[in-house]
């Protein structure tokens, strides 16, 4: 879903930078407040893991492939969507500048789609399901899948505003492909990762938001 520079006029690309920048600043503020010496290795591990897995495109049929985004996974582990924004911003910067994967002028839109939208929907979806006592892996799967799917619809709308795709065929094509990519690439891998971490290091999966809400309702 990495939009290249040629897919969007500069004037519009700058608007998405203007929207993305406050989220990037808030993610840095989150890091200053919530990160500590203990958590730095986790942030570094997740950044490296997500960069690597984004290089692994999985075939989904229809002559198309896709890969995990990972913002939801990061947000769930750190208990904040801003963690996902921070990691995806770093990953997209390296991908765009060093590897020409995703544009430079259009990077704000990519950070908005993959960092902010997919991570936030993934995280709040996960929390909402956990509050209803849905299994942790199922919650991670559904949240992450929905986050990726919705972010692809956002990208389709942006492509339509940019004049690159017509609106409806764009939403249909992007939605169809990412519905499937979201199941395999995002939902499944996020659920497996969360399940493995919750088992090996239950202290690391930050369920604070869920626990707090349960106490309130009791």
């Amino acid at each position, binding site marked *: 879903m990495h939009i290249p520079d040629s897919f969007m006029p500069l004037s519009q690309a700058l608007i998405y930078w203007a929207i993305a920048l406050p989220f990037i600043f808030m993610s840095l503020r989150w890091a*200053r407040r919530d990160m500590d010496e203990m958590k*730095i290795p986790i*942030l*570094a591990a997740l950044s490296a893991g997500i*960069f690597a897995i984004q290089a692994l495109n999985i075939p989904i049929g229809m002559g198309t492939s896709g890969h995990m985004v990972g913002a939801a996974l990061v947000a769930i582990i750190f208990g904040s969507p801003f963690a996902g924004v921070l990691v995806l911003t770093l990953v997209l910067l390296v991908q765009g500048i060093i590897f020409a994967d995703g544009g430079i002028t259009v990077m704000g839109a990519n950070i908005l789609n993959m960092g902010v939208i997919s991570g936030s929907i993934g995280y709040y979806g996960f929390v909402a399901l956990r509050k209803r006592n849905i299994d942790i892996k199922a919650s991670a799967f559904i949240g992450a899948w929905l986050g990726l799917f919705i972010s692809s619809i956002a990208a*389709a709308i942006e492509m339509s505003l940019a004049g690159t795709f017509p609106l409806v065929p764009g939403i249909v094509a*992007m939605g169809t492909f990412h519905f499937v990519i979201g199941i395999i690439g995002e939902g499944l891998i996020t659920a497996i990762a969360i399940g493995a971490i919750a088992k090996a290091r239950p202290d690391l999966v930050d369920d604070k938001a869920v626990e707090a809400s349960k106490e309130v309702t009791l």
Partner: protein
Amino acid sequence: MSNPNMKLLYVVLALAILISILAPFLASSDPDGLESAAEKIIGEERFTELEEAEAAIDSPMPDYSIEGKGKLGEIIAICLGTIGILAISFGLGKIIKA
């Protein structure tokens, strides 16, 4: 360092390096969701035109490859990216908390 999370870092790093080495062989070369949508909606010709449009900057390792180095170059490129992003996020964390 007695940080127990360093063990997690080593485990995930090992996994990430393994993926980085295998990705050039395992990754599908089919277009991704956005490219595939573009190809189908706006036609191959216009899509190719957009794809080949000049990038805003010259990247040192475009498409996760090193010119003339084939699969080995791809492995090196992705491994460098994986280790680089690890160093950047570790460094950023240290700077923010310093």
